[in-house]
């Protein structure tokens, strides 16, 4: 879909539907990476879509519509997750406890390298979100800090811990091989 729209006109309903058809899976996947919960991820896409629709007048046309909605969906996922588990968002000085594996982790193992899926699951929620937003979503550290309402230094620490754990796991796999 060529969704680089005329900046003078707000996106139409048809363009929203087209963006959803072409990028719905990508939005859902991004939400899943953040929430690790299919129901929350589904809600995040719906919340994000409706928010984007209600704010379509603010769409600048300088980015693609699906990219603009993607960002709103990711924010919706963060909001939903934060409401559900606010305690998990405290940036800890030490490595946080490993979260129990969920059915979603098992599903992930079917979708990607099983070892990498396991490694991701070993991250704390804060570490995982820092890593997903930085490495996969390519947000700036300042943007992540603003979104999570914490200091950039906390985001850096969460990211460092995540990368350190993932690199360590990768090193172990190679040693085993």
């Amino acid at each position, binding site marked *: 879909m060529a969704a680089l729209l005329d900046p003078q006109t707000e996106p139409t*309903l048809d363009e*929203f*539907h087209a963006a*959803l*058809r072409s990028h*719905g*899976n*990508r939005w*859902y*996947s991004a939400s*899943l*990476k953040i929430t690790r919960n299919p*129901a929350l991820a*589904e*809600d995040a*896409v*719906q*919340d994000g*879509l*409706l*928010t984007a*629709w*209600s*704010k379509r*007048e603010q769409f600048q046309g300088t980015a693609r519509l699906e990219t603009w909605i993607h960002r709103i969906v990711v924010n919706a996922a963060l909001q*939903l997750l934060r*409401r*559900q588990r606010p305690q998990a968002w405290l940036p800890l000085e030490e490595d946080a406890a490993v979260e129990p594996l969920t059915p979603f982790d098992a*599903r*992930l193992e079917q*979708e*990607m*390298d099983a070892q*990498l*899926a396991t*490694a*991701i699951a070993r991250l704390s929620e804060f570490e995982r979100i820092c890593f997903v937003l*930085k*490495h*996969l979503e390519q947000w*700036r*550290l300042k943007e992540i800090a603003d979104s999570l309402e914490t200091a*950039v230094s906390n985001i*850096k620490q969460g*990211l*460092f811990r995540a*990368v*350190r754990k*993932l*690199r360590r796991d*990768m090193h172990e796999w190679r040693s085993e091989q």
Partner: protein
Amino acid sequence: MINDQELVLYYYRDGLSDERLKQIETSLRQDKLLAARYQALHDQMEQLPVMLEVPASSQVKARWHASLDAAANSTKSKTKSTRDFSWFFDPLRSAVAIPATAVLVLGLGIIIGLYWPDRQPLTQPVIGIKVDSSQSFALGVRAYLHDTETQLASLTVTDVAQRDALLNDILSRNRLYIKAAENSNAPELARVLRAFGPVLASLGDPDNSEHELQAAMAQLTFELSAMQTKLAYAASKQITRL
């Protein structure tokens, strides 16, 4: 000395000052050991997960499309003409707006009431919703609804500060009851409650345009309609069971 943390930031080209970036670039050219360390880190970072897309089910996609259509249709049906938020709390128009919110709250009450095992003789789960509600949760929801009704009834409609305080209070308590519903093994109820959060929040956003407020109200109407549809479905199922 350049540690691995700085190399991670260098890899992302983020979180370092321009001066520090240049220092690291210079060091990488001059220090072979550092260059080797960075190359190893770079290679590993490139292999870190880039997860494949996980497709949503066609049923879920249909729901997203339907909700988008419903929001668009609701927006079209609205013909509000005033330019600021005051229409919602205008003494005349509030005759519509506040009861609409009250109906919303009462709608929630009806849904919750249907799910109370101690309230109704039809204790079977409704439309597949699993409920394991405790007595304290049920009492808490009752109190929440009662207090909200009282607040709405006593609202001074022209007082913006009071209006905002009221909306904030409703939002805060809505969040608490979302959590309570989740803890009470009522995920569907939690999702219904959660759907009202963004709408209520947008009603209190002073930066919202008239169009956005209308859209928020339209969405509220849509959500209410969806709840009523669910209720009708639940009632028909109960009648079938009887």
